[in-house]
């Protein structure tokens, strides 16, 4: 049993664990951006940038310079007089991996996204993200955690939002749940093993309320519709973070979640921190997930840890080293340790390239997986 899970986990965790930087950048804490709402249309981060965010995006690229929004009669017509913000984004990843005692693997993944945010007036907005991809890579299957299903086309986000005040937003629909350090790589253990991976889009209602030194996000959720039988979770939680020193460079937070399903219940406690000081910073998260006893197995605990030290030698060049850990109690005992090195260069606001070197070791099976991935992300900017 242990051996089988170790093999599956080694292979799949590496494949999904090398996601490209396609979403929000929590490293912006280094410049005093404590939350995502300044640059992203959605206060949860990720997805489309607002005009200011597009300006920052371009300013922090190798190309640099001022962002000048496109203008024109036709553009005004097609964007409903600039009420519609949209883009098309492609992320391509070439990845090679080798596992102790096994032949190497190579995979080319390509993902194409259409993202749209339409301002309906009076603070109401509709957002959607639709993804098409050539290869689905589901997270590993375990008796206590079955992956969600997907197809060639996947609706990541379909959300109706209302912002009555500049620092308050209420949103309802289909989206990923609010997340701790909110790193863009959805394949890391703290995300993929806590049902916050690529295909985990749940029906939900959430509130974002933020200020200079705090962000509070209560949420309630139900199934997304693509879960396997018995795995359809409902529940609620809250994410709260604070900047204790008020200097906009240190954020400490906690994510609490409770979910129930037919097969078992789970609770998650996830403290996290985002620290940034000029050109460098630290991101860290530790999630403890307790699974209640179900019909088929007893109670168990899963622990996932993520740590990253990043450094920007140039505004457009990100380098980082990091580590991850996964630990699961018996009867599904697992232990995985991983280290990674990332380099990502923002060539222009339309193009980012990067590579990731990752080494993962399973002390139970003695297997080591080494992998190298090259990512190219392109998007339209108007």
């Amino acid at each position, binding site marked *: 049993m242990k051996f089988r899970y170790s093999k599956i986990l080694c292979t799949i965790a590496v494949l999904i664990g090398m996601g490209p930087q396609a979403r929000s950048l929590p490293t912006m804490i*280094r*410049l*005093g*951006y*404590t*939350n995502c*709402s*300044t640059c992203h249309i959605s206060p949860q981060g990720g997805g489309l940038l*607002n*005009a*200011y965010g*597009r*300006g*920052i995006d371009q*300013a*922090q690229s190798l190309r*640099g*310079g*001022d*962002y000048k929004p496109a203008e024109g009669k036709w553009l005004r017509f097609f964007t409903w007089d600039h009420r519609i913000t949209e883009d098309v984004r492609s992320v391509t990843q070439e990845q090679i991996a080798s596992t102790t005692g096994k032949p190497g693997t190579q995979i080319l993944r390509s993902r194409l996204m259409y993202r749209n945010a339409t301002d309906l007036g009076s603070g109401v907005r509709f957002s959607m993200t639709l993804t098409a991809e050539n290869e689905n890579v589901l997270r590993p299957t375990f008796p206590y955690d079955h992956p969600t299903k997907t197809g060639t086309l996947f609706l990541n986000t379909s959300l109706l939002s209302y912002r009555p005040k*500049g*620092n308050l937003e209420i949103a309802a629909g289909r989206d990923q749940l609010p997340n701790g350090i909110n790193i863009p790589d959805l394949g890391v253990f703290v995300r993929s093993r806590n049902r916050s991976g690529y295909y985990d889009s749940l029906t939900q209602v959430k509130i974002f309320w*933020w*200020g*200079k*030194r705090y*962000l509070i996000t209560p949420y309630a959720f139900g199934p997304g519709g693509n879960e396997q039988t018995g795995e359809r979770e409902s529940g609620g939680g809250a994410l709260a973070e604070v900047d204790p020193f008020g*200097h*906009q460079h240190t954020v400490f937070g906690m994510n609490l979640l409770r979910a129930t399903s037919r097969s078992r219940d789970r609770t998650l406690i996830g403290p996290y921190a985002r620290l940034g000081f*000029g*050109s460098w910073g630290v991101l860290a998260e530790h999630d403890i997930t307790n699974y209640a006893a179900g019909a088929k197995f007893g109670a168990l605990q899963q622990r996932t840890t993520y740590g990253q030290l990043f450094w920007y030698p140039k*505004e457009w060049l990100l380098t980082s080293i990091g580590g991850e850990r996964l630990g699961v109690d018996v009867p599904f005992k697992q232990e995985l340790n991983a280290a990674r090195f990332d380099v990502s260069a923002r060539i222009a606001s339309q193009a980012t390239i990067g590579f990731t070197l990752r080494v993962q070791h399973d002390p139970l099976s003695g297997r080591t997986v080494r992998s190298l991935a090259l990512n190219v992300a392109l998007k339209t900017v108007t």
Partner: protein
Amino acid sequence: MITNSIFKVCLVAVAICSFSVLFNAASDPPQAIEIQSGNTSFQTITNVPGLEVAGKSSAVSGRVLVSRNDAGLLLQQIEASVPVKSLATGISLRDEHMRKYIFTTSDGQLPDLEFKANEASCVPVATTQEFTCHVSGELSIRGVMKPLSVTLRAKQQGGAPLSFRAAGDALVKLSDYGITPPSQFGVRPANEVRVHLEFNGKESRQVTASTGEAR
């Protein structure tokens, strides 16, 4: 006659004593202190909830004449300057905008930020080595001088040559200098900018002991 002589002697004695007291109190020869390493930082809120803009410079330079008196320290001829080009916020384009929209004069010049004050007193706090100084002077931004008050906390570092570590805060209003806070895609900094200054000052050797004036 004798009474008159005694009166004159007493008068001279009182005058000598008074002069002596005054001399000890305020006429210690001033020593020139130069800023050896200094940092200045600024921070302002914006109209976007939760977003502040902050920047700093490590290129603070300046000098001051310091003398001890019974009340504490007397600061004279206070001068400090920061090259505008050394101010950085972490985003080079934002620095460019800051220089262009805030610090550039109408004729295209980019003068340094300068602070000057004639005199200030420092009173001891807790120990004889720590002082609080209320400095009222003038700050020049893009060539426009306006009054500014800075509260400095200074600590004398032991031994010779004389040296101090000091830090202080001030509030600058851009509107006082005729500057309208620039806006970038709807994000606009506030009119009030909090300024923090930290520096090490060390006795300069280029001072004449007799006059205390810098050469």
